[in-house]
């Protein structure tokens, strides 16, 4: 009897992946009838987002309307849509976890647990135990610098180095009022060092852009020399031949785990579900890695030149801290930096 039981279990186990794949095939068929999908995304650069979208289209033949903006702008768009009772966005991918807390509380999401959720790196699972939103991208905010202007030994090693007077007029950052990455970073700095960190940073007259990826431009152009930037976009730009490098701060790179969710009342429910599956697939992870994001699937290795996540010291505020804290720091930032 026991043997029969184990055999049965073995059969089930053997058949399980096939069953899972058959489900996805059915989903793909239903999704194809819906024809297209609209994706509000802040996680990557335009290029990265477009790449991912194209990957999905190539796999399943469904058009993806990639609406890439910074996190706060994406949120603003979404709120406007909701206020006007329009469901335009099917999948919402923002880098500010606080958005998800609020939207979930308002019942704006459709619950869906992707099949592939079980296959991703354990550290990124279960961001929302209720299953309304899931981590689909991860990245770091680190110190970055222009290698043509700054030698590795001179580069800042920890966050407080940015406050050093020798970097006056040479620092670049994004703006928390736009970027979720920057918002989370600001919150973390405030948590670690208090708001004086920024009062001192202000004295160094940083160039403030909007997206965290603005730092890449500023450094590339030689306009600034050091920055609080995203490792992904920085390394991607460096791989193209630009004089950039990442310096992992000894006091902890800020880890951003950015979720995605399906909007309730979406006009393309199957396509949305399929897309969530896709975001957890190996193909998506490969594209991610190409853009120097942290791949979520263990099968896909970290891109060359980037330190594997296990070797980097990271800090990360809690979800409640982010949810409450980012709106606060945006106001504080405006008061301190004048805008």
């Amino acid at each position, binding site marked *: 009897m026991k043997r029969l039981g184990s055999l049965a279990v073995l059969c089930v186990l053997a058949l399980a992946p096939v069953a899972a794949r058959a489900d996805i095939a059915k989903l793909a068929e239903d999704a194809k009838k819906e024809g297209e999908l*609209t994706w509000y995304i802040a996680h990557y650069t*335009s290029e990265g987002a477009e790449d991912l979208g194209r990957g999905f289209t190539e796999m399943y033949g469904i058009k993806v309307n990639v609406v890439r903006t910074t996190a706060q702008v994406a949120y*603003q768009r979404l709120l406007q849509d909701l206020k*006007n009772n329009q469901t335009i966005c099917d999948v919402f991918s923002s880098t500010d976890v606080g958005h998800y807390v609020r939207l979930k509380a308002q019942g704006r999401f459709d619950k869906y647990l992707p099949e592939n959720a079980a296959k991703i790196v354990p550290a990124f699972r279960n961001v929302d135990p209720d299953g309304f939103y899931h981590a689909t991208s991860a990245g770091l905010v680190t110190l970055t610098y222009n290698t043509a202007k700054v030698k590795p030994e001179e580069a800042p090693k920890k966050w407080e180095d940015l406050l050093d007077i020798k970097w006056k007029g*040479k620092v670049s950052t994004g703006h928390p009022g736009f970027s979720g990455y920057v918002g989370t970073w600001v919150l973390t700095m405030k948590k670690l060092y208090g708001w004086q960190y920024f009062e001192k940073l202000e004295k160094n007259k940083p160039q403030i852009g909007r997206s965290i990826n603005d730092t890449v431009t500023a450094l*590339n152009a030689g306009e600034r020399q050091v920055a609080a930037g995203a490792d992904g976009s920085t390394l991607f730009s460096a791989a193209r031949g630009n004089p950039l490098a990442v310096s992992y701060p000894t006091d902890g790179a800020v880890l951003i785990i950015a979720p995605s969710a399906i909007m309730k009342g979406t006009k393309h429910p199957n396509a949305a579900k399929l897309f969530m599956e896709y975001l957890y697939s190996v193909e998506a992870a490969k594209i991610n890695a190409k853009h120097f994001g942290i791949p979520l699937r263990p099968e896909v290795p970290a891109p060359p030149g980037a330190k594997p996540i296990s070797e980097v010291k990271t800090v990360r505020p809690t979800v409640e801290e982010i949810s409450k804290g980012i709106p606060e720091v945006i106001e504080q930032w405006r008061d301190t930096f004048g*805008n």
Partner: protein
Amino acid sequence: MAIAAPAIDTAPPRPRRAANFDSTWILWIAIIAVLLFLVVSPFVYLVVTSFQAEDTGVFTLMNYATAYGRARYIDALLNSLKLGAAAAALAGLFAVPLAWAVARTDMPAPGLTRMLVLATFITPPYTGAVAWILLAGPNAGWLNRFYMLATGAEAGPFNIYSFTGLAIVIALYSFPYIFIFTTAALELVSSEMEDAANILGAGPWRTMRRVTLPLALPAILGGLIICFLEAIALFGSPAMIAIPARFNVVTTQLFQFFGNPVRVEVAAAYAMPLLGVTVLLVLVQRLITRRKGFVALTGKGGERRPILLGRWRWAMFGYAMIVASLAVFLPYIFLVQSAFAKAWGRGFALDNVSLDNFRFVLFEHATAAQSVINSFLYAGASATIAVFLTLGVAYIAARRLVPFGGVLGFLCVAPFVIPGVVLAIGFYAAYAPPTLALYGTALILILAFTTRFLPVGYVNASAAIRSLNPEMEEAVRVLGGSRLTALRRVVAPLLKRNLLGAWLLIFIPATRELSSAIFLYGPSTKVASVMIFDMSEEGNFERLAALALILQVLTLPLLWIGQKALGRDFMLRRNAT
């Protein structure tokens, strides 16, 4: 004048029904309804919304309290006013000497100068801003680099991310307005006025000082005011420059009110002073230009005698070329460099040349390519609607088909005093939510553009219709045709060229319109101007430059058509009120 009458129908005449009922009345009523929809409704909604509490709609003054409660918000307002004044003054400095040189002196190459002013005029201010970021970024800007190279200095003196920088950029791309106003005024000053001064003993300089310039002054002031109004209503260049420069202006602050959360009510309240300032200044401008009957009759038989500058004509030409360099040469050189570069910072190295940016924009970035198409489609639609609508209204007003036709004309011109941003907020408040639910649709953009450009269309149509003798249409009606027939077969054909001109005068600016689009676009209705602005967010200057150049290049055939049909300077002729 005896006319042989056709054979008379001897049957008794049927009694006439509702006197003079013409089926065209339905058309006229439709036009009036559309005007109310486009102009009056958003404005009313704007005002009403500013007094409404969010969600409940209850009357409240809280919005105004919030809008003006923070020092930062009031600072933004003051900054806008200062910026407007600075930009207008600088623009005047650029434009007036050029206009005088081109219109009244023997400065060499006036045609070239006019062409360069035209090139400036068709450059969107946000494209200019991007180019100037490339040129005058404090560390990496080209001008600074050259300076550092030339003098060995540590840092360059130019910083685009400053109040002065922004004022200069705005001035550079709005000075053509003053140029147009000034040349028009100078050309209107009858040569007999100057001859009279000459023969009484005044030489060319004294004549210019005491006769020409004072006569042109009201128009110059008018141009300065228009410049000021443009400057305070701009969104693109302040967003790109003021934010890193760490100061706020009204338009960027309004954008924040549309931020997170969306507070249309507060935005509406905040927009009111902008509207108020604009209305006030437009009234002042009218007052100035109407005084003392300053439009002088042009005399007969005068070859306009240009003022001979002698050696100074080359100095004047040099000045013209300096302004042209700042507005056209330098920016476009570096925009082109950037568009063809892999990384603009790397400069003119041969290995830095690539067509990737164009490829990406045209073929890989679906939204970018679509945005260009959207721009042209929406601009075309709104130009068409605006031209025909204003033709209808101008006709009704000129032929006095309804009482108070002047009010209709006023409505057509009223949008002139509403800054683009404010208009967009009004449209948003009025038509985005249900019942009409135009949120995120192409229609709301088209309607907003149409309204924005009604004044241009109306001024053109009104002048054109006034130039027609009504007897030509009366001849059609006497022979049995309806008014609509007269309109279709006599008026419209005669006005073909005018209509084309008006269409182009609306279409070309509409393709670049940013300040009203930024609040009204949806994910599938992005236009090129918004796309360019978004790209500047990621600092993607190479791709941005490619897109901006594509937009400019696509405009050239239209300009060519316009010039062929309407003369070389059809865009530089004064058409605004």
